[in-house]
């Protein structure tokens, strides 16, 4: 009877862990897209569309974080109460460490976003003159579309109003400290599941291998456009 009970519990735990893993990858995707958007703040690609997309992405990330933190706390406290399998505990701890790292990373991007929006407020048309011409024109539409495709089990279910930027930052900081205090997890005991350098061998269907050459080609073509005389140009190893 108890063995049957334990296997049911294990399956439940496994299901929760899978849900958390999917949410974690969704959070990664959202924060990466957010970083692409923040990197364009203050540049010539900045605009109201960018900032709206940023707010939406931020809201999505907020929902993901809240849901994920609740589920992870539940998972880890569940591990504490019942005598758990060692592997289950390890997987849960690993998810915990990954989540906290993701939140820290996202928080630093939020700080930068807050600062840059303060520095380049686009309230009037004249403010556009203060933007820096970095060579980017536009092109965050694709990123926005990618964000829209992000799914997580509870995102549509639990509709919460997304907070504004400063409150979001304060809330995340409070969440981080609270989580670190509440659940004692030894960070250093978590090990990576894949060895080093493995990610370089993946993605065979990648047509864009030669980005470095692209950068070089762009430099050459620009140079030809800029200077008429064929000056002695040693391009050097790009990258």
């Amino acid at each position, binding site marked *: 009877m108890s063995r049957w009970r334990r296997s049911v519990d294990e399956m439940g735990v496994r299901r929760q862990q899978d849900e958390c893993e999917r949410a974690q990858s969704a959070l990664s995707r959202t924060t990466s897209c957010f970083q692409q958007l*923040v*990197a364009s703040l203050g540049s010539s690609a900045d605009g109201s569309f960018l900032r709206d997309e940023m707010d939406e992405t931020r809201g999505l990330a907020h929902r993901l974080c809240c849901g994920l933190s609740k589920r992870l706390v539940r998972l880890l406290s569940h591990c504490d109460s019942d005598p758990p399998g060692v592997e289950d505990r390890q997987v849960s701890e690993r998810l915990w460490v990954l989540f906290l790292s993701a939140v820290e990373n996202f928080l630093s991007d939020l700080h930068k976003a807050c600062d840059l929006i303060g520095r380049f407020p686009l309230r009037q048309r004249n403010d556009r003159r203060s933007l820096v011409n970095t060579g980017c024109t536009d*092109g965050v539409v694709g990123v926005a579309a990618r964000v829209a495709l992000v799914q997580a089990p509870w995102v549509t279910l639990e509709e919460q109003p997304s907070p504004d930027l400063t409150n979001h930052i304060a809330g995340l900081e409070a969440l981080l400290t609270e989580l670190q205090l509440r659940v004692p997890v030894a960070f250093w005991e978590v090990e*990576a599941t894949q060895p080093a*350098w493995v990610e370089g061998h993946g993605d065979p269907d990648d047509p864009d291998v030669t980005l470095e050459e692209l950068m070089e080609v762009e430099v050459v073509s620009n140079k030809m456009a*800029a200077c008429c005389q064929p000056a002695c140009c040693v391009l050097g190893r790009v990258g």
Partner: protein
Amino acid sequence: MTIRNPLRDHGQRYRPRIACLKKLQRHTVGEDIITWLVDRFQMDTQEARSFGSMLVALGYIYPLQDHKRLVIKPDASLYRFQTPYFWPTQQWPVEDTDYAIYLAKRNIRKKGILELHEQEHYNRLHKWMNHKWDFIVMQAKEQYRAAKERKKPDRVVFDCQERAYWVVHRPPPGTVSAMDYGLDRLIDPNADEAKTPDFYARIMIFTQQSIMRPRVKSSVSIGALVKYCATYNSHDPFLSKCLPSNPWLTDDVTYWTLNMPYVEIPTKMRVERWTFSFAELLSDPRGRNDFRLFLKKEFSGENLAFWEGCEDLKWGEAATMREKAEHIYKTFLARGAPRWINIDGKTMEITVKGLKHPHRYVLDAAQTHIYMLMKKDSYGRYQKSPVFKETVKKAICPEEHHFTDAQLEQNSKKRRPSLSPIILRQMEQEQRAKMAANVDITQVMSKLSKQGKEAPPPPCPPPKK
């Protein structure tokens, strides 16, 4: 950092003026930037060039060609403005996590072919951030895919921006970046200190010690300072020229090779410094060797050997201290010792008494006595001796270098790290072993002949190999 504050106030307003000029182009040209700086800030070309290079070294502008050299070239080289996300103005912390994600992204893109310093960083970060490595790889993959969603020209621009950011904050070997300021200090020395009882206790001790210090007339101390400045003026590499050339300016290390600690033929400037004071002579290893040679010819090498033994005791390891002290006593101080030194009775008494419970500074009195003896007596004779005159004759005076700009660039590319301190320490130990093997016992023989009818001293120990 004062250079940042003006930029924070002014740079942001002024930089976009350039941007307005080149609104439709994706880049700007080096000489245009310099011309604009000369116009806007009313400075001359040289200063504009330095200021422009500072902007590049800080990361506000980045070069498109030769991206590892953070300077501004006054020709048609292309530059771009960095996006505010990657500016150093706000002094956001540059996290190792972000660098690890960047390296993982580069690994994905270049399929494992990273540069040597990047590989080293990657391995180190993989070891120290192992617990969040899964997050780093996942985030790298997601960022890579997110970047692919942008239009190709913008994607290239973003990659250039990111690469330029990391060249500034994790400079490859050979790159001079303005953000390379070393380790962060735990305490900010400019911050106000809390007024605790400890703080006041420290002030009290400091004041008491200041009162107790012996005083000297300001005319005397100022005279000493003036004399020091006059003597060392031509030897200071900042105030006068450094022959053949200052390595920090020209990236040519001849100066350092010619002035290695145990070089065969010293430079003329170095030999001149030995005449300034006895301390200078002793502190320079090559000078000390020369002095030792002179003393050997005079059969009074035991003074210097004793002094060196005392230094070794003072600065050496605590574990071997007792044996060292005993060895020195047996070799130099005991009655009938093989290399007996001549110190007055009172000092000898104090030293022998102290040696019953030896500590690091037990031989201090004797060492000072011998030092003064050498300084007053042997030093003067050394400067008039044929050994010294020979050294002065052989000393070299290298010709000054005159590098062109192209040669300077070549030099900067050939920069290599200097000898590791481990190797230097090994060389020093080899030297010391050689010295110990060549202990001269000739002065023992001369003493024997002097002592004549007295009982012969016990047989001296053979020189250790």
